[in-house]
Each structure stands twice: as structure tokens, then as C-alpha cells.
């Protein structure tokens, strides 16, 4: 029997814990610690194979969960020592609520980034083409002093330096970027206008140069990172399929 395991990428241990709480529709204020702990550890075991990043932090939360679980098993008399009979879950729940606010806000920001990345300002254009530097941000100084002259000269010299420098670089080594990741992102997006999925090999022309293949691959990684597309391999050694993510799936 073969089955497909899909492990989502979690940005941290709270993200994973939060996902579990959300999935099970659990009331945050009455956390079933035993259930959530075992599910958390189960997930962690899956992730161990795939994602070694930040594993220690994920482990730390697992240990915290186990600690809370064991505290809750202790008989009530333990509480007599302290004035307030504190629920061992409280601290974790507080942290989780705090985290969830920011998690939620980050989703709002994500949406806004999509909308407002379509608003373009002048400074997004390459400076060397337009070559406009405004004096305004340096605050216009109408009293001409010696300092101002010295500064002006220094600025002039540094400009000359940078021109010389870029000239030197131009003749020595700089070659124009034939392929850019941005272009390739556009290219892949265009491919997915008409297709929902596509074989990995189809992205690359058999006779493309090494640089182009690498650029395309980087663009692919970028799109996977932002959640626009997903990759899938049904069986080991199968060809890799690239799938367009559903609109609603993006970045969640």
C-alpha cells in the first residue's frame, strides 16, 4: 500500500500547535493536553525526516507539553503550596493567544502585500537609468558654509570613484543578465495559465544553457516558497509533477 503524506511547512512550533488546535476545533481555554501532545509529537516525527530546521525549538515545545501533561496528572494537594491554584496550561495558552494574534495579522499583511505590490513608486525603477538623486532628503541648506563646500567636494569625488569603479567592472567582468529570476517567474506563471499541472522536465528546454536552467530552477523554488505552485511525486523515482496551487491555498 502506498500513500501520500503531505506535510505542511510550519513557521515554528506555535504554528504547528495552532494548526492542530484549529484542525480539531479545540477550545483554547480548555486544552485537551493529552490529545494535543500526542498529535504534536506524531507530527514532529513526520517532520523529523523532512525538515531539520529549527527542530530543537519544536522539541522544546514537545517537552513543555509533556511537562504540562505530567503536572496535570499530579493530585490536587500540590496546589496547597501556592495561594492560587494555577492551571499548568495557563502560561502556554497565554503564549499561544499572543502568538495567534500576530499569526493572524501576518495573514492580513499577506493579503495587503498582494494588493499593494501592484502600486509602483518611482524609486522602484533602477537609479542608474534615471539617475535622479534628490537633494531634498538631505534637507536643503541655504546657508552656504565651508562644511557644505567640503561635503560637496567629497560627494563629487565619491561619485567619480563610483563611476570609475563601475567602468572598470564593466570592462573587466560584467556581462548582462541574460536570464533573470523575475523573467522566469513570469514564464512559469504564463505556462500555468493554460495548464494546471505539468511535468518538471517540461519547464526546461533540452538545449538551454546551464545558466538558464539554474535561473528557471531558482524561479521554481521562489514560486514554491510563496505557495503559488506545489510539487508532487507520487512514487519514488516517478517524474515530478508541478501543480498550480488553488487560489485559496496560497500561503496557508
Amino acid at each position, binding site marked *: 500500500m502506498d500513500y501520500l503524506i503531505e506535510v505542511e511547512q510550519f513557521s515554528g512550533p506555535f504554528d504547528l500547535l495552532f494548526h492542530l488546535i484549529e484542525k480539531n476545533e479545540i477550545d483554547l481555554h480548555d486544552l485537551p493536553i493529552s490529545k494535543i501532545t500526542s498529535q504534536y509529537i506524531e507530527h514532529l516525527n513526520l517532520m523529523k525526516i523532512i525538515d531539520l530546521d529549527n527542530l530543537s525549538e519544536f522539541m522544546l515545545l514537545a517537552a513543555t507539553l509533556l511537562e504540562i501533561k505530567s503536572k496535570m496528572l499530579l493530585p490536587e494537594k500540590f496546589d496547597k503550596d501556592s495561594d492560587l491554584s494555577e492551571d499548568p496550561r495557563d502560561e502556554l495558552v497565554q503564549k499561544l493567544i499572543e502568538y495567534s494574534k500576530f499569526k*493572524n495579522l501576518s495573514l492580513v499583511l499577506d493579503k495587503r502585500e498582494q494588493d499593494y505590490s501592484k*502600486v509602483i513608486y518611482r524609486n522602484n525603477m533602477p537609479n542608474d537609468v534615471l539617475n535622479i538623486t534628490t537633494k531634498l532628503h538631505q534637507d536643503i541648506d541655504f546657508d552656504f558654509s565651508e562644511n557644505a563646500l567640503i561635503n560637496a567636494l567629497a560627494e563629487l569625488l565619491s561619485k567619480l570613484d563610483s563611476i570609475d569603479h563601475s567602468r572598470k567592472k564593466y570592462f573587466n567582468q560584467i556581462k548582462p543578465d541574460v536570464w533573470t529570476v523575475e523573467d522566469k517567474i513570469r514564464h512559469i506563471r504564463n505556462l500555468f495559465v493554460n495548464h494546471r499541472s505539468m511535468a518538471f522536465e517540461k519547464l526546461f528546454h533540452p538545449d538551454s544553457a546551464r545558466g538558464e536552467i539554474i535561473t528557471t530552477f531558482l524561479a521554481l523554488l521562489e514560486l514554491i516558497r510563496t505557495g503559488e505552485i506545489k510539487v508532487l511525486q507520487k512514487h519514488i523515482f516517478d517524474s515530478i509533477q508541478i501543480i498550480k496551487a488553488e487560489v485559496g491555498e496560497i500561503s496557508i
Partner: protein
Amino acid sequence: MNNQEVKSILESVLFISTEPVTVNQFSRLLEVGKDQIYNCLEEIKSSYTEQRGIKLVSINDGYQFSTNSCNYYYVERFCKNINLKKLSQQALEVLSIVAYKQPITKGGIEIIRGVQSSGVVNTLLEKGFIKITGQLDKIGRPLLYGTTDNFLKAFGFASLEDLPDINSFQNADLFMNLED
């Protein structure tokens, strides 16, 4: 100077500027009172209606022209250097925390997220969404971080007061949002 002249000058300077220009800077440049400048700027702003290809956007106390987002498709095809890269989920989380808790140390961010955040903080610094605003007067003198005007621009906020109220995210809302 009458309003007509002031508006004409403001428009020319705004057109050429690659950064937001503040009322104070205009006032010094034109040697005209701040109230007049402000009124003229607001008049220019409202004269660019939704039908126009250009908008005047306020960012903190500055003003800058931007394109109308409706025309993004064509602008994007015309310009080579528009950044198509989005921020990762991790980066957005850190950015949300910095936006609300600024000035905040990296340690402070990590306590909320429960995960090590150096890499993400550096990426955001590089992209100019956050900046170092100072150092905390405690052992180790950790750096404090805050958001930049670039952050406001990229997410369409006029100022930090424009951010949604963090406490309005109740748990019920939260689950609904996640399902979206």
C-alpha cells in the same frame, strides 16, 4: 505665491522625487507656510481620481506619486526591475510583531514566535522593511528594531496608526480567517 503657483511647483517636485517629500521640506523649499502647502497637497491628491493612472499617496507625513494599481499588468510588463518576490510566512510573522511591538529586540520577537528568527530579521533588514532604531540599555545592549517607510508603502499604510487593531483578532475571528 498663490495656490495655483504653489500647486504647480509641488506637482513638478513630486513628479521627479523618488522618495516621499514632507510638508516641512516643501515649506522650506518654497518658503511658503505649512498650512498652504498642506492644503495644496490635499487638493492635488483629490484631483487624481480613480480614473487617473497616477495617485498621490501619503506615507507618514510625506507625499509621493504612485501608479494606479489597476494598471499593474502593463506597468509590470514595461519595467524590468519590479520585484515579484513575495515575503515568506515567517517574514510576515516577524514583520507583524515588529510593527506592533516596536522598538523590539530579536529576543522579544523570538519569545513570541517560539522560534529562532535571526535569518528572517536579516532578510527584512536587507529588504528595507525594518531598521535598527537603537540599543536596549540592558546587559548585552541588544539592538532594537522598528519598521520603515518602505514597510508602510509596501503594505499600503499611511502611518503606523493605520494598522488594524491587534486586539480585534478574537479567537472566533481567527479561526474564520484561517479557513479563508
